[in-house]
């Protein structure tokens, strides 16, 4: 019975058409749909699909190329930077050692100058001191002479004013004093030097 239907029901009275013989309207509408869809794919879908896929792969390939280029540039920049850094370090080291040397020189210079100034000041002070002492000694000699004379006069009971004998006594006495004081001076100067 199925076979009968498959091969065409026309033999059974034509109530049902065969499934193996196409109806004209099915061919028309099916063919029309098919043609439209085919035209759409042929003219619209596939061209656009290929275009966008090609564009995309081009973009990706181009992007990769650009990335490689950028990477090369970055590597070059890094190498350059490293070289510069190396130079800068060497320069810094050179400047540092130079500065060290300069510092030593400057310090030496300053020390030397300070020593000279100190020596000059000391010399000057000693000269002034010596001058002062000479003056003081001269003054003292006069005053001490007068005081001693006065004292001696009072003790002896007679005025030993300006006669030659009295002066000779006084001079001898002061010379004795001077010898004692110059020994004391030499000791004081030695103490200053130290």
């Amino acid at each position, binding site marked *: *019975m*199925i076979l009968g*239907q*498959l091969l065409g029901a026309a033999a059974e009275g034509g109530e*049902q*058409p065969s*499934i*193996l*013989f*196409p*109806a*004209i*309207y*099915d*061919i*028309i*509408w*099916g*063919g029309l*749909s*098919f043609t*439209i*869809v*085919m035209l*759409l*794919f*042929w*003219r*619209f*879908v*596939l*061209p*656009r*699909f*290929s*275009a*966008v*896929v090609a*564009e*995309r792969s081009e*973009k990706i390939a181009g992007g990769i190329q650009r990335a490689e280029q950028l990477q090369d540039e970055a590597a070059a920049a890094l190498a350059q930077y490293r070289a510069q850094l190396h130079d800068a370090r060497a320069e810094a080291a050179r400047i540092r050692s130079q500065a060290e040397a300069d510092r030593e020189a400057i310090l030496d210079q300053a020390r030397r100058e300070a020593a000279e100034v100190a020596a000059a000041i000391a010399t000057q002070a000693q000269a002034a001191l010596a001058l002062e002492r000479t003056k003081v000694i001269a003054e003292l000699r006069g005053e001490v002479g007068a005081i001693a004379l006065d004292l001696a006069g009072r003790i002896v009971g007679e005025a030993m004013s300006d006669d030659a004998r009295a002066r000779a006594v006084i001079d001898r006495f002061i010379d004795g004093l001077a010898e004692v004081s110059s020994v004391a001076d030499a000791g004081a100067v030695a103490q200053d030097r130290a």
Partner: protein
Amino acid sequence: MIATLSWLLPAATSEDGGFTPPTVGEFFPGALFFANTPFAITRINLIMMLMAGLLCLFMVVAFRKPALVPRGIQNLGEMMVDFVYKSIVEEILGANGKRFAGFLVGLFFFIFFFNIAGILPLIHISPSSVIAVPMVMAVAVWVVFNYVGIRKHGLGHYIAMNVFPPGVPKPIYLFITPIEFISTFLLRPITLTIRLLANMMSGHLLLVLFFSATWFFLLESDGLLKIFAVPSFLMGFAFTLFEILVSLLQAYIFALLAAVYIQGSLSEEH
């Protein structure tokens, strides 16, 4: 079990007022418009227009403004087209395939959209299950692969290379030549047609059978028999899933064979 088998035979049980199994009448709905003219429109013809329209709409939306970074529908459309393009056109035809890409990819999508209508709710019948549709497509494939072959090799050489396979002892051609001729020029379109048609028809009949049986058991049978509605429904559900696979597979096979035939016409030796 015997009763189940008897449903496979149309009209076997309808007389006793019980279950009415599907018949091939399913594929001959009455005309809705323009009855008795060549332009009659049946329900199936409406489905053809609907599915073709949906396919066109989908593709137009997907490829209207192709962006470099595809998203949404464009992404989906591209993925599908790309799959068909790679697995059929490039796989079989390689670099030659670009010329035929529109035809082959279009063929795939047309068949798939027509096939899948068989399980869509409210539609539930595939336009591929009326013979006109597979036949039109098979004829189109036949025309294309023969045209391509004749264009490339010339009519005489094209036919000769198809019916005189090289490397065969001369007397054997007596048998081989008619066989090759029939298989290449007659059987190819017929097998393309029948393979798709039979798959879609049987799928539809199985679905109708299981779901109408479910309906019958649930509403019209007595007592314990109602329980059979459950396996019947599950079978119907399983076959619905199976039909999705069949829809894809048949579209793939049809387009793949079309590509193989075109490749055969293009190649130097056969």
